[in-house]
């Protein structure tokens, strides 16, 4: 592999550096994604704080029409957990050099991500909330909508990673893009837990 020290003698302890993206998954982009996740997590924290502030400040029942039905949301939670397992499987398979397994796992994660979007739309249609009337409807749609937007971006990322892995552009020696994309997907899935607990569990707690 070409590197900048070709033709020069290496001194004791020196190593030739690889050319191109670092094989270490903890590349600079990984830390960059971690910083992005920190800011996006702050966004969700603000939204959840606002929801609970509105709930405490509300002069009427909260939620106004009682706790929302959790069937679709629970199914979506299961779908996201399964997709996390698929992405994790893809990441570990790629690091072991099993590109075919990684490709299959990414395809599974892609399907599950699209399924999440479909179920979320069905959930919206079944709830009958109105974003323009009252703060509860607004918070419900903003919380779930912002999360859905993050999921949509995550689906695009997984689609790109699937294509690149399928084309053998990523592999055991170039796993950083998959690790970085996987980190984002883990965040998206993790955020679903407090959102689900806030919207569908907390109303039952009084």
């Amino acid at each position, binding site marked *: 592999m*070409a590197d900048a020290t070709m033709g020069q003698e290496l001194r004791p302890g020196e190593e030739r*550096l690889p050319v191109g993206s670092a094989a270490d998954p903890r*590349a600079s982009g990984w830390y960059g994604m971690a910083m992005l996740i920190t800011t996006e997590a702050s966004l969700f924290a603000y939204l959840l704080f606002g929801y609970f502030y509105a709930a405490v400040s509300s002069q009427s029942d909260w939620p106004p029409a009682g706790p929302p039905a959790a069937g679709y949301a629970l199914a979506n939670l299961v779908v996201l957990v399964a997709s996390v397992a698929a992405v994790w499987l893809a990441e570990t398979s790629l690091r072991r050099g099993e590109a075919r397994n990684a490709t299959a796992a990414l395809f599974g994660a892609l399907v599950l991500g699209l399924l999440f979007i479909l179920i979320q739309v069905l959930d919206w249609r079944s709830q009958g909330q109105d974003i323009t009337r009252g703060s509860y409807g607004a918070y419900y749609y903003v919380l779930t909508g912002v999360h859905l937007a993050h999921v949509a971006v995550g689906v695009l990322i997984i689609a790109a990673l699937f294509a690149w892995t399928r084309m053998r552009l990523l592999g*055991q020696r170039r796993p950083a893009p998959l690790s970085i994309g996987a980190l984002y997907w883990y965040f998206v899935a993790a955020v679903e837990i407090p959102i689900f607990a806030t919207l569908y569990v907390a109303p039952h707690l009084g």
Partner: protein
Amino acid sequence: SRHPLWEDRLDEGTDRSTLGKGMVLDKGRETIATTVLDGEPDAILRMPGDTLAPFLLTVAMALCVVALLLHWWGTAAFGGVCAAAAVIVWLWPQAELGQVEPAPASEVIRG
């Protein structure tokens, strides 16, 4: 700079900058990638060439956002799709930049 003027004023040791050792990085547009915490050289990065992808991305994002403001949902969706495409094209792994998984040795021999 090659020889910082402040270097001799620092009483941090006897080491001084030199052009006589270290990486030359003369094989095109190259730069050093370092580890995040310690700043140790980690890899040689080849810088990409000129591309329209960033400009097209900004145009698509502007179209998407303006369309959202005007409630032109179809146009906003189109802008969003174009923006996504521009990002994917921009981030596409390039073999000449060392961003692509090397072919296995067996394939190289057969080729």
